[in-house]
């Protein structure tokens, strides 16, 4: 049977199990949207900006583990997806971004709404494709999904010329991919596994440093078993939140620039650091030569290029984190260490330097996060924007499950959280989905309120409103002698009125005693988003804070 390239695209997406795409139409994707008009099995969600569509696809992917898909037109439509693609790339999120391209006879002529999308997206995608021939569409989609979701996942751009969408082909979806240059290593090398097992058995003060790879690989259960079996405390990166239950006695919360003091002390004192699915990012390590100075390093990662990139590794293991942890548990036949003195030391640090803040008559932003945890019993999916509120959410929500933390770690994209929450809510219709936001960030993609209202999504938006770009202001206070250059947002619009204008519920909370009730009330609303504008302490800082370039135990704590 002969079908058009656009029909072949939709059929291919369905073959990949896609039932939901986010997108925004335009000239060069009209053939695709014409197919979507009649399509019953694949739902299209119209966002109000292409950036919103990419973040929604990303939030969907992070919260479900499936590949997120979005569609945008050529030129400005495609360039609007760039921030979303880069966000997904930095955090290794599987995503397929389909963009329209001008017809093949117009490519290279500076045609209307033409942009070199392949050139632009090359450094921020795992791979990308320009499709000029309709016959290539099934193969390319097959490969795109395969590459996006295997190995170290990442976003793939498929740029399809308009005539390729219109031309007819006989459709046959390939059974398998043929990519001789792409063979991710899944099984760790047995000699390395043995060396690691031995090193672990000899360690007196071991520490696990777990990253987003645990979540990606679905290895939270194995990590917990491994840590408990060997009595090794676990600190996680920002991306690793939810990889290990933070209410467990071996949990050390987050490390790094805004990590818990006890996590950072443990890193600096440990004699063995087992990095699992983490990449020694500068926000984690601080001053690199001073990082974990007493430790031998084991590094488990699926991406060989991450091993030895920033830190010298004693035992590298390239492989899927989950498979490697299973193998490692099989290999280590030695009696696991008890590490009693080490765990006691860590408990002392925990007692002496807990994550804390001072309460007063104002609403403390940390308190709002604690109350969100209380009313949701820690069961919600927490999305965030980027800034102080993100760090408070990371420090005070106490995550216990994977895929409940949806936040832009690597790129640090303000405006990410709200559209990501839309994607997360679509992917998890029964879950309570929160976007914890700042008053700066929420205004960066506020237009998606129309999408959320349109689809009756009961997303809770908790704006920690301090009338500042808080994180930048904090740096200005601590590092630039309080010169608050362009960080004062005192002329913010009335966010309650804005939300209401879109048809959402909204309320302003100004007293600490009203916080919990407002949050509880928000949970009762099931048919529209709720924006809670919390007027919080204006100049509250995120502590601990490791100033850039310092060793991570050189923290400012208040």
């Amino acid at each position, binding site marked *: 049977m002969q079908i058009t390239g656009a029909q072949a695209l939709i059929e291919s997406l369905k073959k990949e199990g896609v039932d939901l795409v986010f997108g925004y139409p335009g000239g060069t994707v009209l053939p695709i949207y014409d197919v979507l008009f009649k399509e019953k099995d694949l739902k299209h969600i119209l966002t109000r900006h292409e950036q919103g569509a990419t973040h929604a696809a990303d939030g969907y992917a992070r919260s479900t583990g499936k590949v997120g898909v979005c569609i945008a037109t050529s030129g400005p439509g495609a360039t609007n997806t760039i921030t979303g693609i880069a966000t997904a790339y930095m955090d290794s999120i599987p995503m397929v971004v389909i963009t329209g391209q001008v017809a093949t006879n117009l490519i290279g002529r500076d045609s209307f709404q033409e942009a070199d999308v*392949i*050139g632009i997206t*090359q*450094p921020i995608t*795992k*791979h990308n494709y*320009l499709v000029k021939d309709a016959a290539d569409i099934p193969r390319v989609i097959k490969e795109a999904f395969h*590459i996006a979701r295997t190995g170290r996942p990442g976003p793939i751009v498929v740029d399809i010329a308009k005539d390729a969408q219109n031309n007819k082909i006989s459709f046959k979806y390939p059974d398998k991919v043929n*990519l*001789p*240059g*792409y063979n991710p290593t899944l099984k760790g090398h047995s000699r390395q596994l043995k060396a690691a097992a031995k090193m672990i058995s000899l360690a007196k003060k071991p520490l696990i440093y777990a990253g987003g790879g645990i979540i990606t690989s679905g290895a939270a259960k194995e990590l917990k078993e491994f840590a408990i079996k060997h009595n090794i405390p676990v600190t996680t990166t920002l991306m690793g939140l939810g990889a290990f239950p933070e209410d467990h006695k071996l949990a050390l919360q987050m490390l790094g620039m805004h990590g818990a003091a006890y996590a950072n002390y443990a890193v600096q004192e440990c004699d063995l650091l087992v990095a699992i699915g983490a990449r020694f990012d500068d926000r984690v390590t601080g001053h690199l030569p001073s990082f974990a100075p007493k430790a031998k390093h084991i590094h488990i990662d699926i*991406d*060989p*290029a991450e091993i*030895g*990139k920033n830190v010298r590794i004693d035992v590298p293991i390239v492989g899927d984190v989950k498979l490697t942890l299973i193998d490692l548990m099989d290999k280590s036949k030695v009696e696991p260490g008890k590490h009693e003195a080490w765990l006691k030391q860590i408990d002392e640090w925990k007692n002496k330097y807990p994550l804390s803040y001072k309460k007063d008559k104002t609403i403390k932003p940390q308190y709002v996060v604690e109350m969100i945890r209380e009313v949701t019993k820690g069961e919600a999916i927490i999305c965030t924007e980027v800034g102080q509120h993100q760090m408070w959410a990371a420090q005070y929500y106490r995550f216990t499950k994977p895929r409940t933390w949806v936040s832009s770690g690597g790129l640090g994209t303000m405006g990410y959280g709200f559209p990501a929450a839309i994607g997360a809510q679509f992917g998890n219709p029964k879950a309570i989905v929160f976007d914890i936001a700042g008053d700066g960030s929420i205004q960066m993609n506020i237009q998606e309120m129309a999408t959320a209202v349109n689809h009756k999504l009961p997303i809770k938006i908790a704006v920690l409103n301090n009338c500042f770009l808080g994180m930048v202001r904090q740096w200005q206070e601590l590092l630039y002698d309080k010169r608050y250059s362009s960080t004062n947002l005192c002329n913010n619009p009335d966010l309650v009125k804005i939300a209401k204008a879109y048809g959402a519920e909204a309320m302003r909370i100004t007293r600490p005693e009203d916080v919990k009730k407002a949050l509880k009330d928000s949970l009762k609303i099931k048919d529209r988003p709720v924006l809670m504008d919390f007027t919080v302490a204006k100049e509250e800082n995120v502590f601990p804070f490791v100033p850039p370039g310092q060793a991570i135990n050189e923290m400012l704590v208040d």
Partner: protein
Amino acid sequence: MKHTISVIVENKPGVLHRVSALFSRRGFNIESLAVGTTADPDISRMTIVASGDDQTLEQIIKQLYKLIDVLKVFDLPELESIERELAMVKVKADQKTQTELTQIADTCGAKIVNVAADSVIIEISAEQDKVENLQRLLEKFDIIELVRTGKIALQRGSAE
């Protein structure tokens, strides 16, 4: 330290850009680059000369392997490889200087491939230092134009 890296790639549109952009994006400097198809027309071989310490080189190779179109990457050990550059030099020449130029060409293993009324073109295919040596010898004759390819190299023996 200089390294000669062979990159075997699928001969697909944009692959040269993917490889060269990776070098610049990761802050690695390319000193020369030569590309051509292999015995299999679907597969090309890039020979890239880049400088950096061993850690940088390791990172370059690992990053190259992450490109989907890259099939194989290897660092060619200098002592175990045959390396060549091709250069053509157009030099001012008259009847008086032509004999001397022919002698220089002969000594350097180069040859005169074109003779015009007031100039000659000398071609050399050799290791980099020999190419540069010829260039120095020709400087006094007034070089009009000079063109050099990037280095190409193959490892001796049956190893790939």
